[in-house]
């Protein structure tokens, strides 16, 4: 037999389907109006507030503390960020259920790969955009306001807020795989999240107590913190994230699409 006629067996790249869905989802998230509204609103509010502080500093001559500004940014991120993340993630899978998901899931990709790619993509876009906005505001506050913050404490604050947002994003993706409707997923998540937050605040209980987190942000930017409790907090967020993802993954791997 002519050797040139023998085709070597085609080697499929096992990571390629995962990578393709991750890339595609990230690209589509960046093009979505929810994401654009989030980034635009975050930028307008953040930089608008920064400029307001700068104006007070230059016009009235009142010194403006960068630590106070950044603690407010972090507190605001904790309060409003989850709502935007819920909007951004609750439709990850449920919005594509039906023919659009068919056209992907009927190809050479497993449900596990699909779910993981979607989850990682939403984590990536959410956290990258948050870090971009928060990092820009940190840089702006350092240059434009009175520098009195702990950069390391501020970065730790970003990590904690990121951990909370990642936890919400994971719950959002998991809920989107559990629910058939995006609206239902948003409603369930929103009520669960803020209901739990309110309950923890009223009881004054737990690492994820919103009031505790609120106070913590002010202390972090001033450099008044201990590593242990913060790591524990991040660990709790990571555990809840992974648990939510596992529940979503197991359910999605078994359900009809």
């Amino acid at each position, binding site marked *: 037999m002519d050797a040139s006629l023998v085709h070597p067996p085609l080697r499929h790249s096992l990571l*390629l389907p995962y990578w393709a869905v991750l890339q595609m989802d990230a690209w589509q998230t960046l093009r979505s109006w929810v994401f654009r509204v989030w980034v635009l609103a975050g930028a307008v509010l953040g930089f608008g507030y920064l400029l307001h502080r700068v104006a007070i500093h230059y016009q009235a001559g009142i010194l403006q503390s960068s630590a106070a500004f950044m603690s407010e940014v972090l507190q605001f991120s904790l309060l409003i960020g989850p709502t935007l993340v819920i909007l951004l993630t609750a439709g990850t899978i449920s919005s594509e259920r039906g023919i659009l998901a068919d056209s992907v899931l*009927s190809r050479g990709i497993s449900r596990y790969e699909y779910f993981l790619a979607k989850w990682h993509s939403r984590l990536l876009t959410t956290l990258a955009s948050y870090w971009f906005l928060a990092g820009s505001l940190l840089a702006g506050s350092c240059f434009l306001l009175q520098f009195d913050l702990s950069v390391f404490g501020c970065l730790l604050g970003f990590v904690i807020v990121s951990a909370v947002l990642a936890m919400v994003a994971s719950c959002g993706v998991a809920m989107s795989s559990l629910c058939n409707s995006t609206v239902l997923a948003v409603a369930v998540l929103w009520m669960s999240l803020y209901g739990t937050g309110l309950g923890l605040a009223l009881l004054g209980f737990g690492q994820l107590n919103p009031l505790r987190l609120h106070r913590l942000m002010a202390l972090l930017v001033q450099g008044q913190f201990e590593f242990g409790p913060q790591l524990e907090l991040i660990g709790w967020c990571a555990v809840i994230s992974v648990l939510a993802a596992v529940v979503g993954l197991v359910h999605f791997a078994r359900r009809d699409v």
Partner: protein
Amino acid sequence: MAESASNLVVETHKLTKIYQNRQIALNDVTLSIEPGCVLGLLGPNGAGKTTLLRLILGLHRPTAGWVKVCGKKMGPNAAALRRKIGYIPTNPQFPPGMTPIVYLDFMAKLFGLPAQVRKPRLASLIRAVGLLEVSGDPIAGFSNGMTARLAVATSLINEPELLIWDEPTHGLDPEARRSMLELIKNLSKDKTLIVSSHNLSDIDEVCNHAAVLSRGHLIYFGSLQDLKGRMRRNHYELDLEGDQKAITKAASVIKSLPEFKTVHIRQRRLELRLNDDVSNSSVLANVFMTLADNKVNLVSIRSVGQQTEQAFLDLVEKEESRGFARAYAAPDE
């Protein structure tokens, strides 16, 4: 379609799908599809055709029974098996803002095809389906025919062994429909196809086997010829030419023959129904002799029972009329 199990492209055993304990979409479907088979999946709306296809693709999980593709059990995570399948859904939808090149590249990546394989393949497919001029345009602006061609290219990007096309001619104009049927004929030379369609003439033209579903139940599975042949095979219509009196006289002679169940004459059309136990060739020879004796010319003859549509309708009608008897059907029925 008895072939050793290892060679079967698709095999289902007592496949049943019940949605949320509310709707029985598929009931006890057992079939096996050999390599090279072009199976036409027929059935009225809601018969379970799409459910069966989705079960074969692993998009749905069976409530009971199993599906095997190329000898291995299909499931939601059987990605390696799906690499052997090319699928076109009923109304293919595409993610917004994509061009054919981007979309096909994405689809090829989903099959794990490395760049040195997928890039030339997608280029040749875009050329083959005639989308070269619009390969950089957004898919959102495409016509039905263009999206159908893109769907065809998508289903072929992984060079599959099995093609599953759900209503591929749906919404196409006659020219595009003709091209699609020609393509199916060409592909059937070296691939196994399952084609679901409401258009029975399409199935008749391109398929060599048929499966008929009615209310989730498989009421026929076998060759298309058998399906056509088993229904009203002794029912013929003859268009005649000649003097009306001679035609009437010939008809009355034919009526007197004992082999006929019914003989109807309507102007120049003669409708004949033969008894079930007679040899149709010798009886028809007698008919032709009688016509010749009366100087009546034969313009055309057609076997009414040979129409797939009629066979399909008869099957569904028969299944409906069985009523509760369905519950007591013999296992091999």
